[in-house]
Every structure is written in C-alpha cells, then in structure tokens.
C-alpha cells in the first residue's frame, strides 16, 4: 500500500517533471507533440479542479450548518444563492445544459446585477479604509517608511492630471521613479522570486517537497 500511496505519486511526479523539463530543449516534432499533449492534459485537469474547489466550498459551509456553528445561517444563504444560480445555469435561457451557453437570460442578468455589482463594490470598500489609514496610520515611523511615503506621494500626484497641472516636473519625476529605482528593485525581487520558484520546482521533482500530496492517510 505504501507503494501506491507514496512511491507511485512520487514516480509520476518525477517522470512527468523531468520529461516536461527536457522537452523544452528539444525542437523535434516528437517533443513538440508531447508538449502539446501535456498542455492539453494539464488544462483539462484544471477544469476538474474547479469542481474540487466547489465541493470543498460547499462542504465547508455544510459543516457549519450541520454543527450549527456560529453564523450558520449565513452558510445557509450561500446554499440558497448557489442553488438559485445553479437553476439558471441549468436552464440556460431555455436550452438546457447540453447546448452552447446562451449570452442572455437570468444567468447573465444575475451575473451582471448581483455578481459584478457586489464584487466591484467589495473591493471599492478598501478605498475608504485606505483613506482612513492614510489619516490615522500611514506614519513615517522609520526612515524606510518615510522613503516609501514620499515615493507614494510622487506617484499619486504624477499619475493623475492634477500632477501636471501643479508642475510639469511631477509627472517626469514619477516616470523616472517608476522606470529607474522602482524597476531596479522589482527586477531584484523578480530574480530572487524566480530562483525561489526554480528551487521549489526542483524539490518537487526530486521528491524532497511532498506537501502538495496532502490529504488521505499515509
């Protein structure tokens, strides 16, 4: 059993990992075919992963309802709104689920008027909290934080028309700041991050990092 639960996944990971790494260097038709198939498979498995995410969301809220945890009524609301929207998904403006998707009907209506409206509103809430934080908590406690705030002010002024209205120097300072010191730091971060990503990928391929396996008994 240990072979099936531990070794087999590791072998899978190693073989597929090394193969997809090597074919990068091989322009031959055979290698390109493998790359095409891998990309397709990966893409299709991702579609199933959505179902996985959906089931785990629903089971999380189901647990809250079943155990009558604090705020379980909100979980019930998740179920109700999910159920109603699912009906619209299946209805597909009269064509049923086994036809191309319609761009009209209750599904699109709910999407625009509930989903889009809520989603954009949720993130716009942050505009308010940022302003309150600007007043109450964005402090130049240290020289570093002072540099951060000065650079933020230059960018905020230079990026909108009011900056040029005050002085032509401000947008130019913003441009310079973005494309020289900001660019340099972002490049430094990027180099570090990609080294980190490569190191993590190596640990995965060589079976040193197995936390992705998760779940199930060992």
């Amino acid at each position, binding site marked *: 059993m240990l072979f099936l639960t531990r070794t087999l996944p590791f072998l899978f990971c190693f073989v597929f990992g090394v193969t997809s790494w090597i074919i990068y260097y091989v322009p031959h038709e055979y290698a390109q075919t493998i790359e095409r198939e891998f990309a397709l498979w990966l893409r299709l498995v991702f579609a199933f992963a959505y179902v996985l995410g959906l089931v785990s969301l629903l089971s999380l809220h189901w647990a809250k309802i079943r155990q009558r945890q604090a705020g379980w009524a909100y979980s019930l609301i998740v179920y109700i709104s999910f159920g109603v929207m699912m009906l619209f998904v299946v209805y597909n403006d009269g064509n049923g689920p086994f036809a191309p998707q319609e761009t009209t009907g209750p599904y699109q209506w709910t999407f625009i008027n509930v989903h889009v409206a809520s*989603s954009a509103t949720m993130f716009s809430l942050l505009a308010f909290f940022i302003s*309150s934080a600007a007043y109450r908590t964005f402090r130049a406690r240290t020289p570093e934080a002072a540099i951060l705030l000065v650079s933020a002010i230059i960018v905020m002024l230079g990026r909108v028309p009011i900056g040029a209205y005050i002085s032509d120097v401000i947008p130019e300072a913003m441009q310079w700041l973005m494309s020289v010191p900001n660019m340099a730091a972002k490049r430094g971060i990027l180099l570090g991050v990609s080294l980190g990503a490569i190191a993590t990928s190596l640990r995965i391929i060589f079976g040193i990092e197995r936390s992705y396996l998760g779940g199930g008994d060992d």
Partner: protein
Amino acid sequence: MERLINIDRRIIFVFVFLGVAIPLLVDIHLPIKPTPTVRSVYDEIERISIEDPDRPVLVSFSYGASTVPEMVPMTRAILRHLFSRGRKVVGICLWPEAVGIAQPIMDELAAEFGMKYGTDYAFLGYKPGQHAVVLNLGQSVAGTFPFDTAGTAIGDLPVLDGAKNLKDFSLVFDFAAGDSMEFWWIPFGQEKHRFPFAGGCTAVMAPDLYPFLQSKQLVGLLGGLAGAAEYETIIGVPGSATAGMEPQSVTHLIIILFILLGNTVYFITRRRGGTV
C-alpha cells in the same frame, strides 16, 4: 492633538465619498497627457496596421468582476482602436468571469465599426488552466479552443485562417487583473514564440511590470484607469476613464493631505514625548 487623529473614521469616509461624487457632478476639466508606456501601445497597433495587416490580433481577457471599473474602460479603448484600424480580433478569456463581461463589449464595438462575426472577429470563450492554456495556444489554437462560445468549430471561422499557433498573430494583448502577463504570457508564450506583446493591467499590478518594459519583453502597458484615460485621449474618444480622472485627482489630493496631516500630528506629539 490626539483627539484630532482619533476622530470617528466615518467622518473620513464622508470626505472620500464627497471627493468622488462632487467632481463627478461638477465639470472641472484637467488636460490629460499620455505617458510613453501608453503611447507605445498605440504606436505598436498603428505599426502592425501598416506592416502586418493580414494576421489577426489575439486579445486575452484575464480579469474578473471585481476590477470592472478599471478594466472595462481600457478594454473599450483598445478594442475601439483595433476595430477602427480594421484589425481582425480574436478574443479569449483566461479568467472565467471575463466571459460575461468582455463578450457583450466586443459585440457592441464590433457592431459599431461594422465588423462581422466570424470573418472580422471571434470570441472563443474561456478555458481553465491559466498558464497551461497559453502553452497550449503556443502549440495549437484549434487544439486549445476547438469551438467558440456558440459551438462553432474553429475551422469554420475565417478570421482564424492561417492562425495555427501564437506565432501567427500580429500582436497579443492581455488585459490583466492578476499576474497573467508576468507569469503566464511571458514565460509560457512570449518566451518561445516572440510575438509582439502588450497589455493593460490594474494599477495594482503596473509597477511590477516595469522590468519587462525595459527588457522589451513587453512592448507597452496601460496601467489602471489613468492608463485607460490616456489611451482615450490618444485615440480622441473620451469615455468613462477620462471622466474618472477628475474625481481621481481630487481624491488623490485628499489622501495626500491626510497623510501629511497625520504625519505632522505624529511628529509634533512625538517631539512632546507622547504616543499616537
């Protein structure tokens, strides 16, 4: 002094609300000056319209509902420019929510310029897989999007004649609310096929992309609503982004004043030995 800082934050919220609402209602005209990164997107589309007029442009929508106010104005500005130059446009979505948002916009603008579905433009819908979709497109467009959203096979869409993979597009343009330009398109597409690549992103992502502008992995960039407003200015069709620049300017000023005020109080109280 400390009481000044510890006021109810709802008072600040009212300031911000008014800072947005009043400039929206009262017209204060401020001239918009396009920045070089935005200008180079325009120049690139003009260039391909002359030098590479036959091959289609691939437009990828990688954003969701939460960033609609930022992303939709730039979607409109770019599509308007492409259609006005008679470019053939193929739209794909890398984020699921983009389907319901981008498709109506594309249809509307195409109708405005008399572009016909199938021959002048197409909308292929969404495929899960993020970077895997980009990699797959690099190998085969028809193998990645076998049908459009109406179920028509790709082979029946003349706009895609000759477009077998990413190499066969004159330009790829990504509208990104996340890191799709940086971590999907550049390493999994542009790295191999070297197509001209430009994009528009939310303001949050924009500073991260400057290294790619300097290394020419990215031709040009529209950053946030300001980038969209600049593009509207270049093509001479002011829209909601241009209208948004006035409240944007005012609220930026308000926030800067808040930061300055807060810090002044902070330094005064700190000098007196208090804490805030």
